[in-house]
């Protein structure tokens, strides 16, 4: 059992989905145990694959192992060949993703047995989650673009299903639509990029395309264009500006869904895509990576500032996710797959932790608005502790995992980017600490604002708290894999940078100036949060009043949603109305009804020739003969 059998990892949850779909209602407990067993099996299978990988990775020319079956293969008479291949590819990048996806999915599924208990569609929940796991794992392991795209769409579809899980709520079904349509816009770009790459290379296989690019098969402009189209898919899926609008609304789904899909796994698919495509980005014009950085940085700043004024606890965490995704994109834009993947690794754990502990709060108090919460630390100490831990990791406080990961990103940003980018990144550290501490203070500290909600608040049952504790433990230690010593002790060739890299391994180095600066910024943010929001939060209210226009802009999410809605109303629906007019009047009324009407009308006109009277018919015959005779005489046939 090794990398060749990695296809089992997505296959088992896929099988579980099929069984749950068809027979779920007949199984005891609607089959939640089957879903959990399947993902546990995937997680278990991750280890032999890892061991096999570690055995091979020391070879100098190791570039991953592929396995699979060719489904369709034919040559078009003109143009490139076409293949449909169910192929799986394992390398260091994939193994990191596998670790995060399988483990977090397992944690979330176990947690869900408690959170979703009693829901009328409990069985369908686990079926959809299994499908999602299968699709996400396929995406990670895909060795060719078509399979990747199919899995990409698959996770998007599962996201739609799960955001709109409580579809009786209008807001939930609207949010699901919004998510799907917004990411679809990005997906169109992804498909165009895939076809651009295929057109010249004649293959969809990712490794072959890399070789083709390295050999200079693409012109620089062509490759840059293709790579930017691929990035468009990442912009949609990873909620970068301007396609970030779906993620805050996606919080309509159940909280475990948010933890899994919109924090740890699906949204990082865009990061994974760019990371995997980094060889292409490096071959292309530097402007491509600059675009990535620019959008990433914009996303970071916008989301951090919006998180500052959000009042729904899940929304704040959603904005923090968008923030994190932006950071990862800046890391990639700086050319470092190591930093981005290290952050992805740590982020998967602490973001899932944040969401799941928020879920415990929601489950206990039935409330989500911070205006209704407060002082929960007394009644839910464990939840408060782990949430605080996650928040501190997000803020980047040493020695938590978030610190090491964020520091790595700041390092590469400092090395490869200009002063402006670096400056904004430092500023984002401050703001992140600020809004994360804000939500901790408003939710867990101080006095309860809604006594009634807190009556029954208590730490959740073990099946929900155990995943929290496991994730909290990882939040603390996951960052240490960056160290060479830790890596080697675990059997890896070195630290994280020696395991996951593009072009050349990056040994761990620790510039003290970056670390100190970021720590100062983070601590300043935490302290400022206490100043503004502890107690009655008077300073915060005063600040909001003083800077009312800025406050309102942030509350209205920079008016992006409004602009999009206006565009949809005035442009898209207007164009649709024109086309609808054409379809109704020209195609239907004139074309279809018209030709039918013509037939009826002419028939009606001609029926009067049938008088039933013999002399009339005789006249017709005679007239006809005379006419024909004249015609023949004239034409001389």
């Amino acid at each position, binding site marked *: 059992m090794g990398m060749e059998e990695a296809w089992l990892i997505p296959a088992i949850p896929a099988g579980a989905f099929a069984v749950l779909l068809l027979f779920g209602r007949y199984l005891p407990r609607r089959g939640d145990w089957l879903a959990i067993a399947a993902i546990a099996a995937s997680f278990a299978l991750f280890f032999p694959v890892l061991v096999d990988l570690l055995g091979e990775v020391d070879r100098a020319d190791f570039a991953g192992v592929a396995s699979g079956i060719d489904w369709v293969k034919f040559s078009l008479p003109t143009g490139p060949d076409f293949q449909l291949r169910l192929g799986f590819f394992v390398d260091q990048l994939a193994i990191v993703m596998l670790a995060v996806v399988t483990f977090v999915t397992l944690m979330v599924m176990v947690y869900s047995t408690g959170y979703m208990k009693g829901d009328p569609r409990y069985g369908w929940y686990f079926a959809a989650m299994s499908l999602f796991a299968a699709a996400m794992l396929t995406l990670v392991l895909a060795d060719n673009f078509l399979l990747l795209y199919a899995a990409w769409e698959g996770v998007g579809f599962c996201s739609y299903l799960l955001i709109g899980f409580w579809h009786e709520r209008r807001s939930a079904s609207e949010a699901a639509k919004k998510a799907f349509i917004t990411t679809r816009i990005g997906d169109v770009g992804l498909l165009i990029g895939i076809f651009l790459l295929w057109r010249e290379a004649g293959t969809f296989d990712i490794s072959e395309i890399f070789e083709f690019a390295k050999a200079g098969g693409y012109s620089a402009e062509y490759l840059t264009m293709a790579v930017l189209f691929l990035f468009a898919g990442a912009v949609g899926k990873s909620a970068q500006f301007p396609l970030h609008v779906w993620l805050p609304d996606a919080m309509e789904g159940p909280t475990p869904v948010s933890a899994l899909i919109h924090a740890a796994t699906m949204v990082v698919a865009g990061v994974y895509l760019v990371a995997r495509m980094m060889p292409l980005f490096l071959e292309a014009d530097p402007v491509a990576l600059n675009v990535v950085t620019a959008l990433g940085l914009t996303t970071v700043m916008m989301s951090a500032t919006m998180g500052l004024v959000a009042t729904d606890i899940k929304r704040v965490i959603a904005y923090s996710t968008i923030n994190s995704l932006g950071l990862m994109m800046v890391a990639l834009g700086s050319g470092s797959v190591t930093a981005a993947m290290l952050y992805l690794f740590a982020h998967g754990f602490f973001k899932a932790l944040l969401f799941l502990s928020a879920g415990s709060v929601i489950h206990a108090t039935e409330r989500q608005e911070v205006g209704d919460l407060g002082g929960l630390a007394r009644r839910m100490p464990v939840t408060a502790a782990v949430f605080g831990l996650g928040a501190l990791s997000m803020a980047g406080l040493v020695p938590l995992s978030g610190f090491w990961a964020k520091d790595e990103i700041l390092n590469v940003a400092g090395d490869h980017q200009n002063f402006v980018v670096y400056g904004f990144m430092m500023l984002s550290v401050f703001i992140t600490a600020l809004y994360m501490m804000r939500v901790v203070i408003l939710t867990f500290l101080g006095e309860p604002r809604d006594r009634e909600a807190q009556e029954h608040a208590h730490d959740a049952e073990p099946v929900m708290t155990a995943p929290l504790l496991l994730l909290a433990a990882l939040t603390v230690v996951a960052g240490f894999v960056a160290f060479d010593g830790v890596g080697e002790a675990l059997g890896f060739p070195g630290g994280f940078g020696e395991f996951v890299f593009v072009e050349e391994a990056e040994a761990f180095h620790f510039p003290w100036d970056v670390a100190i600066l970021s720590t100062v910024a983070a601590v300043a943010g935490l302290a400022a949060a206490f100043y503004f929001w502890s107690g009655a939060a008077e300073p915060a209210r005063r600040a909001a009043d003083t800077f009312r226009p800025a406050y309102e802009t942030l509350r209205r999410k920079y008016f992006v949603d409004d602009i999009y809605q206006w565009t949809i109303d005035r442009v898209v629906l207007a164009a649709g109305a024109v086309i609808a007019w054409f379809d109704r009047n020209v195609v239907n009324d004139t074309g279809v009804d018209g030709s039918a009407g013509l037939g009826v009308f002419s028939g009606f006109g001609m029926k009067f020739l049938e*008088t*039933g*009277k013999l002399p009339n018919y005789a006249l017709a015959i005679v007239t006809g003969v005379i006419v024909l005779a004249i015609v023949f005489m004239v034409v001389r046939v």
Partner: protein
Amino acid sequence: MIPIQHFLVLSSILFSLGIYGVLARRSAVLILMSIELMLQAVSINFIAFAVYLYPKEFSGLIFAIFVITIAAAEVGLALAIILRIFRNKATANVDEVDVLKW
């Protein structure tokens, strides 16, 4: 012998009179008689051509005999139909038989 045109003109005149009769008569029996006239006009035409162009052959003459025979059979049939209509509708006026009108 007189030129053939005399016979052809005669045949045409008879044919035209026959057509006029078919179109203008109200009585079914009279229409039948006009049809007979048309048939005989055609026979005259055939015999004229036969005698003037191919005097040694009989084709045209035999054709005339065919026409007479068929005309006789057809009249029998037609009168039977007219009798039937008369029994059903009490009229031999073709203008009044328009059951197949739209």
